[in-house]
């Protein structure tokens, strides 16, 4: 630990000297780790877009003052391919080679759980835009997130289905190889049963990147006659499951979590996903001026409307940069302390961290109507 500290100190000195010699501006690196390839690649692309936009705006606005020197950010994006192993080596590269002052990422909880111990050991703050599994930030005090956590999301959906849709029985089909899916499934079941509902089937499959056939599980689920089908999986498998369910004549309403938020859900699922409801962090149809302004800027820049992934990555990077500016330091611990005290107001709501560095903020319910995401309601914590 002391050696590490010494290395960081030397790096800081070198950086300081370099900055001092050249002129009055400095540049520091900020890393991003997202899944740019693989089954959830649209998540990575949106996240990278959001983070890049936040960095560009920060630099245009003049950056931060670090020890009297105007400092801007150089953003370095890495691909984790949706795999914890690849994510971990990307984190090593960013920290040891690029000497980043912080890491934005990853998208998936399982990847963030692999990145977090590395960032924590190196004393580099990490903020995940979208990893909702509760254990991610428990890794250590340098680990933050910009989204609400699985318990909240699973519970919100359970309450919505039981109280608003007035459905009393539900079946769950989830990927038991992924912390995110498992977390949502557990908290949905707990919340739904607490309300008095009954989870009639609780079925699993292993690894949604490898599974394409869900008929065996669906046959079993169909025999229990559920009124609602909860699929807390990513959009690819959620769409596939629904397609196969409809093909088998299982035509009950279905829902999921923020993993459904992708245009590809409808592209793959077509009519099968129509009427599906899911919990999310942000809706582009939210009428507040801040959201509409962001949607307009993003659409001009990237040629498509932002999804929640883009909004959260924008918020995560924005929050980090805001803390960096407040701290006026490139030291991990200074930025961390500033992040803990943040009152940053982002696109997806006002941020305030609890003692586990999880934000306390609201969720929205979105419904697929005519193949379009339609905003239904905002649910407060």
């Amino acid at each position: 630990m002391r050696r590490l500290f010494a290395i960081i100190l030397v790096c800081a000195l070198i950086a300081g000297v370099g900055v001092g010699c050249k002129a009055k501006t400095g540049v520091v690196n900020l890393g991003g780790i997202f899944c740019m390839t693989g089954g959830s690649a649209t998540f990575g692309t949106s996240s990278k877009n959001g983070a890049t936009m936040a960095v560009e705006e920060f630099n245009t606005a003049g950056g931060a003052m670090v020890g009297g020197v105007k400092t801007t950010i150089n953003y370095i994006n890495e691909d984790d391919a949706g795999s914890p192993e690849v994510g971990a080596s990307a984190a090593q590269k960013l920290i040891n080679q690029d000497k980043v002052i912080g890491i934005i990422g990853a998208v998936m909880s399982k990847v963030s759980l692999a990145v977090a111990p590395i960032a924590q050991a190196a004393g580099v703050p990490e903020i995940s835009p979208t990893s909702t599994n509760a254990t991610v930030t428990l890794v250590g005090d340098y680990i933050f997130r910009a989204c609400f956590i699985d318990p909240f999301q699973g519970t919100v959906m359970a309450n919505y289905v039981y109280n608003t849709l007035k459905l009393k029985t539900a079946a769950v089909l989830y990927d038991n190889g992924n912390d995110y899916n498992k977390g949502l499934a557990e908290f949905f079941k707990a919340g739904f049963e607490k309300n008095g509902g009954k989870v009639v089937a609780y079925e699993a499959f292993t690894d949604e990147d490898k599974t394409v056939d869900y008929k065996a599980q669906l046959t079993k689920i169909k025999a229990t006659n559920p009124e609602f089908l909860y699929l807390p999986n990513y959009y690819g498998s959620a769409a596939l499951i629904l397609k196969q369910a409809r093909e088998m004549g299982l035509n009950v309403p279905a829902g999921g979590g923020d993993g459904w938020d992708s245009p590809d859900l409808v592209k793959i699922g077509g009519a099968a996903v129509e009427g599906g409801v899911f919990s999310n962090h942000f809706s582009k149809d939210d009428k507040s001026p801040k959201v509409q302004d962001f949607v307009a800027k993003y659409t001009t820049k990237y040629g498509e409307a932002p999804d929640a992934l883009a909004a959260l990555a924008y918020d995560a990077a924005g929050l980090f940069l805001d803390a960096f500016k407040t701290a006026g330091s490139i030291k991990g611990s200074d930025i961390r302390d500033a992040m803990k005290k943040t009152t940053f107001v982002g696109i997806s709501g006002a941020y305030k961290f609890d003692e586990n560095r999880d934000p306390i903020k609201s969720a929205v319910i979105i419904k697929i109507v005519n193949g379009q995401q339609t905003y239904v309601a905002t649910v407060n914590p």
Partner: protein
Amino acid sequence: MGQFLQQLINGIQIGSIYALIALGYTMVYGIVRLINFAHADIFMFGAYMGFFLAPVMAKVFGGAFIPTIIAAMLITGLLGFVMEKLAYRPLRYKSRLSALITALGVSIFLENFCAMPFVFGPTFRAFPDLIVAKNIPIPGNLGLSVSNVLLLDIGVSVILMVLLFWFVNKTLIGKQMRAVAFDKPTASLMGINIDVVISTAFIVGPALAGAGGILYGTTYGMLASPFLGIWPGLKAFIAAVLGGIGNIPGAVLGAYIMGISEAFATSVNSNLGYGIAFAILIGILLIRPSGLLGKFMPEKV
């Protein structure tokens, strides 16, 4: 009872797709004693061909399914032919290990080449709806149902398998293939052109995998990434081994056992699903190490 039969139907559907892939493994192995690991990627290639060709075929012919499956089979057959010529033929009389490693290399190359953004790209593709899925309830009080996609999968694979059996058993080249599989040096002394026979195996096997790819695309409606062949390919390979690698009816039998045990195991406990299925397979191989229909053949020295 109803659920039991429904799971059996599910298993037969998956088994049909596995069978089409397993046949290619077993044919190539029977003739050149090579496990062509790139076979799974030929299956993937066939599926992507369907993705690209279906809209064109729909425009030209009006209906898409039959022209698409034929075109995909022709293209994957050609791919198999070229693959053998370029990668395996130069190594034919070298150590079998070199050919095996080459097969792995070809597999990794195909996957990663196809994953490049300007080839197929690494992301999800929604497969065009060659037919619109419809649920068809079976009359009776068991609550059974099939879908038109399921019937199509089973129908197409049965037709192709019947054609293959006719080809192998009744045509001259088929007889030559069996002769080469039985004893290569003697067959060549009898005037059989080994090159032609091997090329034929490398065309027919991949063509079947191409058809399997189209059925896969039609059934699941999406292509996850150019790595999608790995998992079905692995299962089909195990099915071929289970049935007795080198034996054509064995591959079909193995594939159906694989599909059905997978469906049943998943319905018993979805957390352990594949685990149970693979345990059954290990059990069978312990009793019959050369596969269900395979003959025990000691290595000739």
